[in-house]
């Protein structure tokens, strides 16, 4: 059952460098945005940029985009568990400590 799926494909250096440039660009944007007062949107934008960056890393550097779909299922289940726990935690938290 030794299925070596990567011997056939040779991802190009150029694509990796492009992804890296995108990651550095997004880092610059998120640092620059921190200088502005975006009121309630500061955390939302910072997290949105972090999510885009992590998608770039998982899809290209970690090859999830081209790998077997089973890895996407793994990641989906893990993220789903995380979201359920954080939502339940905040139901509890907002009930105990309502924002004034």
């Amino acid at each position, binding site marked *: 059952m*030794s299925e070596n*799926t990567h*011997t056939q494909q040779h*991802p190009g250096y150029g694509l990796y460098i492009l992804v890296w440039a995108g990651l550095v660009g997004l880092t610059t944007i998120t640092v620059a945005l921190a200088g502005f007062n975006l009121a309630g949107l500061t955390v939302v934008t910072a997290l949105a940029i972090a999510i885009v960056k992590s998608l770039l*890393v998982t899809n290209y550097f970690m090859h999830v985009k081209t790998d*077997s779909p089973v890895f996407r299922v793994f990641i989906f289940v893990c993220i789903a568990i995380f979201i359920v726990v954080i939502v339940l935690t905040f139901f509890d938290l907002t009930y105990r400590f309502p924002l004034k």
Partner: protein
Amino acid sequence: MNNEATLNHGHSHRDDLGSKMGMWLFLLTELLLFGGMFILYASYRYMYADNFKVAAMHLDTLIGSVNTILLLTSSLTVALSIAALQRKQTRFSVYLLLFTIVAGGAFLVNKYFEWSAKIGHGIYPKGPEMANLSDGEVIFYGLYYVMTGLHALHVIVGLVFIGFMVVFILKGKQTFDNFQRLENAGLYWHLVDIIWIFLFPLFYLIH
């Protein structure tokens, strides 16, 4: 799966897909480990939003940004190193891994100076400055030390892991058609990168 790889290496009982699945399952437990801490951070940030902003202003955004670029670049060189090995450019592959180790080491050196400066100001558990801080700030620095500390521990483990891969490549144990261990080391290093991608804005950029 009677592809070429099986015919050439049928005797070695390799299962690259299984190996990668095992690595991913481990990485996801790591993600949930840090996930628990992120939930703790989110809960306390909800309760002490203003204190968190004050405390975050005292972290050095420049060091944080430099460290982010260092980790992103080291992730790039790991990915490139696997591509280089696939193209039988063994020497280039090793150089890229050595660059990764240097960049990861530089990350830790920055972290050392950053922590030293904070400790020098009396900000550490039971430190003299802690009595002057609000509850929220004390919790912020507690989370800061635990989360960046655990992350730094992962950087150290990743560097050792990659160091072994350099040895394996030089000894011919990881080659252009047998590089799953290198790929697993790369996956671990990218995970460390992803965790930092979230730690950086949450601790350094929330003011």
